[in-house]
């Protein structure tokens, strides 16, 4: 590590680097709590990409045109790619993909609760792209400048693809809203279901988010949950109006003084309920991941056994 102030303790030097907006790299000294927080956050993010493949994967076989099918399949495949970069970024902190997956499968590690909601109509593919990826972008763009180098670099790639995903989601919504009445109803019905869960994606209120202060200090996080939630509402309400749709919140109103939208209160009971594992799809999402992993065990073992045989033969030859 380039030393900014040689007389200071490692902790103070580390904080000085962060304050100077310099990146922390894998071999640099870092406080154990910083390492742990990052492993938790990056692996949680990787798991979200992996589990996030399932609700959209649910519609690949039913996409309504060949073009939509190709776009959706490519999008879900991108998510698998994001999972790969993020697992690799987390591995630079001294954990392994096997360990991270074991923690996901045991329920110890979390993933974004949004994926515990079901995708029930084609318009959900629009809402997932437009709203869910829209919220993810707001959360993730600041992470391109996060203090840990490998995470920041992974996020630059992730964000480029996410913005394409969001546009395709919006375009699905737009096509539905410009289509037949039945399609517009489908779009509104999906918005009604996805609006509040997406607002929950920004996490608990600042007052109830104990990790925020430390994460802001370490520049792992750059905005608070409530700041991002407000930004999201300000961005999405006009887009919904443009589509001719109505967000399902009677309290949404432009506040001239704040130059922002006022909006209603998230149902925090539902939020904590889903976080604790009681959402409609928590069980089946995790089960699908565990099943894929267990049913893939013999394939992974065969690949390793074959590689070992090859190596042995090469050594003999």
């Amino acid at each position: 590590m380039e030393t900014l102030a040689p007389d200071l303790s490692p902790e103070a030097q580390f904080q000085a680097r962060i304050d100077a907006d310099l990146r922390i790299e894998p071999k640099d000294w870092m406080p154990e709590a910083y390492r742990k927080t990052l492993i938790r956050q990056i692996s949680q993010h990787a798991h979200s990409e992996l589990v996030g493949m399932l609700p959209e994967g649910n519609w690949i076989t039913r996409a309504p045109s060949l073009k939509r099918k190709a776009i959706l399949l490519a999008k879900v495949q991108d998510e698998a790619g994001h999972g790969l970069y993020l697992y690799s970024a987390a591995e630079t902190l001294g954990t392994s993909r096997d360990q991270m997956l074991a923690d996901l499968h045991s329920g110890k590690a979390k993933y974004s609760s949004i994926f515990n909601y079901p995708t029930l109509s084609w318009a959900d593919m629009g809402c997932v792209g437009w709203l869910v990826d829209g919220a993810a972008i707001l959360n993730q763009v600041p992470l391109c400048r996060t203090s840990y180098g490998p995470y920041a670099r992974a996020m630059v790639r992730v964000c480029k693809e996410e913005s394409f995903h969001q546009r395709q989601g919006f375009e699905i919504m737009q096509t539905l809203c410009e289509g037949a009445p039945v399609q517009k109803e489908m779009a509104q019905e999906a918005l009604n279901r996805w609006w509040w869960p997406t607002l929950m994606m920004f996490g608990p209120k600042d007052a109830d988010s104990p990790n925020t202060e430390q994460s802001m200090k370490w520049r792992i996080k750059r905005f608070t949950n409530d700041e991002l939630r407000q930004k999201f509402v300000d961005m999405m309400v006009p887009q919904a109006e443009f589509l001719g749709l109505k967000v399902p919140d009677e309290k949404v109103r432009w506040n001239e003084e704040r130059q922002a939208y006022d909006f209603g209160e998230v149902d925090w009971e539902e939020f904590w309920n889903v976080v604790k594992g009681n959402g409609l799809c928590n069980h089946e999402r995790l089960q699908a991941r565990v099943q894929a992993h267990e049913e893939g065990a013999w394939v992974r073992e065969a690949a390793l056994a074959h590689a070992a045989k090859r190596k042995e033969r090469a050594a003999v030859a």
Partner: protein
Amino acid sequence: MATPDLSPAQLAAPAYPAELRSQLFQYVLQLADTSLILAHRLSEWCGHGPVLEQDLALSNIALDLLGEARSYYQYAAELEGRGRTEDDLAYLRSAVEYRNPLLVEQPNGDFAYTVVRQFLFDNFHYQLLKGLQNGPDARLAAIAEKSLKEAAYHLKWSSEWLIRLGDGTPESRRRLDKAIATLWRFAGELTTPTPNESQLQELGLVPDYAALLPAMQAHVAHVLAEATVPLPTAPVAQLGGKTGRHSEHLGYLLAELQYLQRTYPGLTW
């Protein structure tokens, strides 16, 4: 390939005589259906692969085949000249109108089934595209040229996995043997020409399957030897898909694939 009895002017798509045009339409549709149905099957793996890298590989192959299918459907729609689109052809035909061989509609089963199905198809597909690339129909040649690069990668992927599973663990070998015993009987249909294919082959418009067989057989022998798997005794080939007589699996696949278009006819998505 025999020299076609047709002048280059006749061979330009719009100038094909009506009957030939309709025959070629059937043939291109068969190629399109084949790539679409296999792409659809592979896309069912998305999110459920045995390891993240292979989840990506399966989706990649599915995307390649889907892209290829779309090119064929677009050409088929033009050859037919009745204003149908790629989506009309894919979404609004029933199972008996589909022309894919039985192999590609078979369910994914476990990873060994998917690998064997893919290997049998890729081995044929790669040689077929090589033939089409040099064929007299400019449009098919162009599609084949683009797809050939992808098909070469697919064949490499499925050959390598077949070898890993055959020469891996006793468990992977047991599963591979079972997949071979189940799926090998569907390989023969790929190179058994339908009456329509025979006529187009005689005209030299499409590759003669008999000419593709030696290279295909050599590759199978090579890969199975590497996999330490004995060459299966040729089972009685199951035929029918290419003339619209399918296994029961296709109906369910199409019910899912066509669900939205059938439920809400005539809308834009």
